[in-house]
């Protein structure tokens, strides 16, 4: 019974241990996945969804312009696969998810890095900067997301504080802030110089000078176009009356709850930086994150919010002045929703195209967000430097815009799981350490197959009888002892003379000697003497021969 109870307890203990192990394993897997899979999040900023807070209108428009649009759901490591990215643009609109911290080749201090920058892994950031260095264009639109990793890589820093500005869209509310693109920062002190325009695209301070933007160059060329479509990538500047492209360098961008960049010295590896867009002098950065503007006069200086202007839109290039049309550029705007459908297509939004159940969008003011975005795309795609041939204004066959969907939360489990698997696949085939891991994995898989996988055994009848032996070798020594031999001999004497034990025990010694007769055996029985092996053998032989005659 006790054994049964013990066995039952051990079985129970084993089950509990196994269950605990699997619970712990599931918990760890859940923790790991929960950092990457966020099903509770609302899906937004997607180029392939048509809600008011997605950017599908932008994608559709550039697609209509003949530019190939693609989405990237796994990892920006795939940018390395683009051989000539001169006409390609990579759009990061909101980085909602952090990256997996998988081992990768370290940058400076360590060979292998186990911790990754925010948002993108070292390898991914390297792929993005390499993409820019090879002539690609990157648009980074983010406010409080995980873009700091890529911003840090080019020497820019997000403040991660909410920006409030007196220059907000009065038709809406204070969450919608105007950002005006000025020629240079110092002009902010002079309100007369408030709206000069994009300095590089407009070429210097001379408002009559020829801008560097290709649409500006086409505008200067005085060529007429019969239709808007004929004006190609500069069609959004087309004046249907004059039949010409009339480039306008003034941009009023409407931002939704933006942040701002830190006002620091640029320290990145790129040679050209320019804070193209700034907030107004009457803007404030909510440093204490209390959701209100707190002036220095109202509280202690340490708790007060900072007053603007603040950098909101920064351009950086690999070339010294961004003059090279085939050179790469990165556009940073500290607002993830700068191109959402409601702002980008404000007319459609106001006419109710993006209304949802119980939510109606109205009064979105006219803005230049669309113009700015299409100008960025035009600058990226029109690299021919030919402003006379009308074919050159059309999108080239290799022009491409890639939308980064890998850092958008999905509200469907399988979509997120698919993205995760795809990310791992790209990591393992694109990252140095990933490839090393994959090689090891493949090697181990082959080893496992080689060792573990066996073919079905050939069937063959085997005649197999276990020829077991059974004996008691321990007793052999006992039967060589003198006393035992003596006992066996006396038993023999008693048996052969048909005596009972009692009769034999009562028998006088002389009578026993007469029965035995053999003097050697008599001596053996009556003398307690030690016998060596030879003598014992001789005695046993005599016992065996005793009375046989």
């Amino acid at each position, binding site marked *: 019974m006790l054994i049964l109870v013990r066995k039952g307890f051990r079985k129970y203990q084993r089950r509990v241990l196994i269950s605990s192990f699997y619970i712990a394993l599931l918990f760890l897997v859940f923790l790991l996945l929960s950092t990457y899979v966020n099903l509770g999040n609302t899906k937004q900023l997607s180029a392939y969804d048509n809600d008011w807070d997605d950017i599908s209108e932008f994608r559709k428009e550039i697609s209509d312009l003949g530019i190939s649009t693609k989405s990237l759901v796994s990892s920006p490591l795939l940018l390395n*696969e683009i051989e000539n990215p001169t006409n390609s643009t990579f759009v990061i609109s909101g980085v909602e998810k952090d990256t997996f911290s998988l081992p990768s080749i370290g940058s400076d201090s360590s060979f292998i890095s186990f911790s990754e920058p925010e948002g993108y892994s070292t390898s991914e950031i390297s792929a993005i900067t390499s993409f820019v260095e090879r002539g690609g264009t990157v648009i980074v639109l983010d406010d409080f997301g995980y873009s700091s990793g890529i911003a840090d890589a080019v020497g820019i820093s997000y403040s991660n504080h909410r920006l409030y500005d007196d220059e907000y869209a009065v038709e809406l509310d204070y969450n919608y802030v105007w950002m005006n693109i000025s020629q240079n920062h110092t002009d902010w002190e002079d309100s007369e110089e408030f709206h000069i325009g994009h300095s590089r695209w407009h070429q210097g301070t001379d408002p009559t000078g020829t801008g560097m933007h290709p649409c500006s160059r086409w505008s200067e060329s005085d060529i007429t176009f019969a239709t808007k479509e004929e004006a190609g990538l500069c069609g959004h500047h087309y004046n249907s009356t004059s039949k010409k492209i009339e480039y306008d360098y003034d941009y009023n961008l409407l931002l939704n709850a933006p942040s701002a960049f830190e006002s620091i010295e640029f320290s990145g590896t790129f040679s050209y930086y320019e804070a193209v867009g700034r907030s107004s002098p009457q803007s404030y950065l909510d440093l204490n994150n209390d959701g209100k503007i707190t002036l220095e006069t109202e509280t202690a200086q340490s708790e007060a919010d900072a007053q603007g202007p603040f950098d909101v839109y920064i351009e950086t290039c690999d070339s010294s002045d961004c003059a090279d049309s085939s050179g790469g550029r990165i556009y940073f705007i500290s607002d993830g929703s700068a191109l959402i459908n409601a702002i980008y297509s404000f007319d459609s939004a106001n006419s109710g195209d993006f209304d949802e159940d119980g939510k109606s969008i109205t009064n979105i003011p006219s803005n230049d967000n669309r113009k700015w975005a299409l100008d960025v795309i035009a600058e990226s795609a029109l690299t021919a430097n030919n402003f006379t041939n009308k074919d050159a204004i059309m999108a080239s066959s290799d022009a491409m815009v890639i939308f980064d969907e890998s850092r958008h939360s999905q509200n469907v489990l399988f979509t997120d799981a698919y993205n995760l698997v795809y990310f791992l*696949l790209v990591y*393992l*085939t*694109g990252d140095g350490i990933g*490839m090393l891991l*994959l090689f090891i994995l*493949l090697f181990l*898989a*082959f080893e496992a*197959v080689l060792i573990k*996988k*066996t*073919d*079905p055994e050939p*069937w*063959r*009848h*085997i*005649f*197999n*009888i*276990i*020829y*077991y*032996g*059974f*004996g*008691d*070798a321990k*007793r*052999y*020594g006992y*039967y*060589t002892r003198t006393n*035992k*031999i003596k006992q*066996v*001999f006396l*038993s*023999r004497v008693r*048996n*052969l003379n*048909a005596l009972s034990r009692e009769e034999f025990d009562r028998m006088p010694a002389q009578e026993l000697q007469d029965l035995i007769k053999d003097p050697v055996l008599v001596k053996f029985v009556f003398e307690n003497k030690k016998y060596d092996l030879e003598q*014992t*053998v001789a005695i*046993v*032989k005599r*016992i*065996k021969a005793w009375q046989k005659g």
Partner: protein
Amino acid sequence: MWTRKAAFSITGGISLVLIGMMISNFQLMVIGLTFVAFTVLNGWIKGHGNVEVQRILSADNLYKGDDLFVELRITNRSMRRTQQLEIYDNVPHEMKLRSGLNYMRVNLGPGQSTRIRYSLRCPLRGHYSIGPISIRFRNTFNLFAQEMFVSHHSDLIVFPQVRDVEEAFIRSRTPKMYTGASTLRTPGPGSEFYSLREYVTGDPFKNINWKAFARTGDLMVNEKCRDAVTDLFIILDSRDISRIGTVLKNPLEMGAVAAASLASFFIQRRDSVALAIYDDGVSYLPADTGDKQYFKILSSLAGVVPKGSMPLQAVTNSLSPRFSRGSPVFIISSIEGDGTVPNAVRDLVGRGHEVTILSPSSLDFERLVSRIPRMSYEVLKIERQNRLTGLAGFGASVIDWMPDVELSQALLQVKDI
């Protein structure tokens, strides 16, 4: 089930795809995909084991050392080919394949059938089962294999060998009280005619004497003399100690042969034979005669295995109420490791039984598997002789049965004790 080749093919294919992705080599990826696709496609091409199998044995019961002939008929009852099928009849490993093979590769068309014939030698007694039939399908490229079973079993019993001991009993000094069936001059079941009497309801028709009926006009039946038979009791030692020796030569094997042979001899003489086998308990077959009893005895002996350590006196004490007065008792035991044997024998002899002890020499069986030092062997031998002499002194007939001596020869040696 995947074969090793399939596992190599699939892992190789996936590896090539991944390496192709790593080094951006499209050709490698295509080759890898080809491997994977080839393996996957092969996984879909399957045969089937939907066959009907019938096994025919030459005998259901046979004696140790006899040959068994087996025929397996396999028929494809389906409407499509089986593809490559391996068919294997699972045979107990204690049986030796004498001729033919219990394995065949077939590819049967719809309705086709084939046969496998083989013969087995059964060197060990026991209860055995042939089957099930294993069927394995392999696809053409040996990438996948699938195993199935046809749960078709054929049971058979291998009886211990039966030796002819008649001559030994005639020539030996073994007491001649085993006289076989003798007629008594009283009516009852028997073989010899006793008298005629009138028919009464319930008499079997076969006993009606039709000539007497024709002569007298009344139904008359034949009455037979009652046959008196001797009840013989065989007690077989199946304790754990009786396994000493090899699997083919040990006290239990020899004891089983002896018990079967004695039972055969006495049942042929129309005596009643009872069998008691003791190991960790006693299994008792009450005294009876005839073929049915003979079959029961052989079946019991076929399944006996060494175990336990029950003393002989406990056996005789428990069975003594069942022993017929004065009936002969045969004890087949090595007489080792049981201090109660002298008392048990003395009690049996004291109650008037003719006790014969057939004792396989376990010491000499032990020599077959273990090197016993010469001097120890001699002393052990003397001790065994003392033990047997002691039993003989109680009035039992004792036979010291050496491993290399035939049973009939051993029975003649009773005089030597």
